[in-house]
């Protein structure tokens, strides 16, 4: 009897977007007089960081500094429609809507700047910090602020844009199941290292090593947040969580954070991850959704690592100490002559 270590692997894919009811989102963008840009949405930030991601996408398309972008969400009186934050769709859908809106706004911005600088708008480029410069002509430029002021007070132009992204609804063929249920697929492979106490069935996850392919990491720091937080949740689902500990018996359901078991700060493994990018053809800058999937691959990886460690094959989540111990007992009984 001892603590045994094992390693398990799992590889998964995850769909971006829900596409069985049509899946649109919209964005409106306008410049303020002083060349800041307000992006009006009705999308919801659950903590995944929508405002930051949308700021970066807006700044990239407009060619301005992220500091000049304000995300105004969510108010149904002012924000255009968004289906909502779910199905790993927000970066993809709202990001695409913003690209469309920002592209339109950028065109007006460059038109106005071209008139101010007396050059064709095609000859202009943005420097990403707040200036619009004439290509190949050092020193000939106008600030975004001055262009915005001119648009408002001189040219009578609205530097604004409207954007929508709609993945049309897919109607499944109920005979064959043929359908188009998603926009793209992200990928992950996780390796779990665990230690099993064979006397008690307790499992400790020592390390989770992952590789994620997510199309484009718009903000690698926030990708990391999803990976670490999602790995933790996956471990939690694998070993601890249930609202019905004796499912399908309804007894003993937890009602607080003591009984609804999740790993605490003392139970966390070491995390290690690398990111791969294979840009999707339809995501903003190729981005795919990563929000949901980071909790998925750790679960089977941990289950497989437990088997590797001690030979207990648990097919029933969560993998409680009791289930591990019952499996070890059954194996011991079977091994008896």
């Amino acid at each position: 009897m001892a603590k045994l270590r094992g390693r398990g692997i799992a590889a998964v894919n995850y769909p971006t977007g829900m596409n069985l009811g049509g899946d649109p989102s919209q964005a409106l963008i306008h410049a303020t007089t002083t060349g800041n840009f307000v992006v009006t949405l009705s999308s919801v930030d659950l903590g995944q960081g929508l405002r930051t991601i949308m700021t970066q996408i807006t700044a990239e398309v407009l060619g301005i500094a992220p500091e000049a972008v304000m995300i105004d969400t969510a108010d149904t009186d002012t924000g255009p429609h968004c289906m909502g934050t779910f199905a790993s769709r927000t970066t993809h859908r709202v990001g695409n809507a913003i690209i469309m809106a920002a592209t339109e706004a950028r065109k007006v911005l460059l038109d106005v700047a071209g008139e101010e600088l007396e050059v064709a708008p095609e000859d202009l480029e943005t420097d990403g910090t707040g200036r619009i410069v004439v290509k190949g002509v050092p020193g000939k430029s106008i600030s975004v602020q001055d262009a915005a002021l001119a648009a408002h007070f001189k040219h009578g132009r609205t530097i604004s844009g409207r954007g929508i992204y709609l993945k049309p609804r897919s109607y499944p063929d109920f005979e064959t199941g043929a359908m188009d249920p998603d926009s793209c697929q992200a990928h992950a492979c996780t390796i779990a290292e665990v230690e099993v106490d064979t006397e008690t069935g307790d499992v400790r996850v020592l390390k989770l090593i992952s590789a994620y392919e997510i199309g484009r990491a718009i903000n690698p720091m926030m990708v990391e947040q999803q990976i670490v937080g999602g790995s933790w949740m996956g471990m939690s689902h694998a070993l601890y969580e249930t609202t019905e500990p004796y499912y399908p018996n309804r007894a003993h359901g937890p009602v607080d954070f003591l009984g609804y078991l999740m790993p605490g700060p003392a139970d966390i493994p070491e995390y290690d991850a690398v990111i791969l990018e294979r840009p999707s053809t339809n995501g903003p800058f190729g981005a795919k959704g990563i929000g949901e999937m980071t909790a998925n691959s750790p679960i089977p990886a941990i289950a497989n690592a437990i088997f590797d460690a001690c030979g207990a094959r648990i097919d029933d989540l969560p993998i409680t100490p009791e289930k591990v111990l019952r499996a070890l007992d059954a194996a011991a009984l079977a091994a008896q002559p």
Partner: protein
Amino acid sequence: MARILEDVFTAERAGSFQAIGRALPRIDAHSHVTGATRYYADRIFPNLLHAVMARSEHHHALIRHVDLSAAQAVKGVARILTHKDVPNNWYTILKLIGLGPDEEPVLAEDRVLYRGEPIVAILADTEAAAREAAAKVKVEYEELPAVLDVETAILPGTPAIKPHGSNVFVYEGRDHFHVHCGDTEAAFREADHIFEHSYQSSPIEHAPVETTGAIAVPEPGGRYTLHSNTQAAFFTLDNAALILGLPFRQLRVVGGTVGGGFGGKVDVIVEPIAVLGAMLTGRPVKYSFSRGEEMQVSSPRAAERIRIKDGVAADGRIIARDVRILVDAGAYSRHSPYGTIKAAAHMPGPYTVPNVTINAWCVYTNRTPSSAMRGFGVTIGDFALEVQMDRIARELGRDPFELRLQNAYRDGDLKAHRKTVEGAALVEVIQAAAERIGHPLSPECRAMSSCQRT
């Protein structure tokens, strides 16, 4: 910070960006660390009423009588809402896109189908008074047998707990959702090995630190502002208006800053009651789940039972995969009929299998309705698929990385639901993970690519 592997898909990644790819600090972080971020409940309204539900104590019962007298006598109780107060007492979340049927009452009428089903809503000056009154609602039940197991639920002869006469969601006349390609039975006969195993999960709660809630505030002109932590502002507006028989223009949803969602705040459960309370009292009304309610009566990720039968050739190719999925929807549909299709669409996983049969049932039982949660329809499927892959690798004495690489889908392959694979990268993440831990792969496996089958 996690490193981006720049030598994989290098050509496809090409591009020069200024804002994309930057580890820009979160723009909400400063307000998070100072406590300045305003969540829905941080908007304070004088004269606020608190809504608390009196809930079913039984898994399945007829309601014979509801006695509100003791509850009404509690000091501070302003109003008690029953199903008779709800203009359209149906919660049918996908109604606007034509998905039904109407089956879940907002407040229970003559029966309850799960323990914790809301029956009446107490509106009181304080949360404590509302809780006390809710505890004093006396409901006379006639208990009915409960169906709690999905296998039992679909057996012929098991009493139907649903008015439509069966315990499964009906997909255009079919009792389950079906996907197939190729000829699974023929391939099983050709297979050198058959693997058949069953997998099970139990319900999982979102457990955001901020529970689901909303405050409805009457505004001049007969409008109502809903301060909500919904994950979907217009979903909430539209469904609340449908239930309340309100012109859509009379509702405004304000939110967007949420203390964790994970899918638990997609269902429109608290908002209609809050607005109804505001309509009937003229006062702001807050309805937020207690932690206990969040744990036991807010919809979890469904428990799933998945059986996978694989036919595998001697060289490790999976040539047939038959998957049977039972999704435990609980008492009402919510997003489970969709989640069941999503589960079916995900099979046979990120592998190319020429012969696939998938049968997925959305099964009703007398438990808390399940609904959206992070990865629902996929997370448990991945558990089943990847434990199954581990079993196959071990039985055949194959390296678990290499078995997956061999079967991994590639660009141009056809999925079971007949969509062509593009943008595949399973091969590359497996190669990268193997390298990360120094796990040796054969030269053939190292040379593999998602872009073409070699």
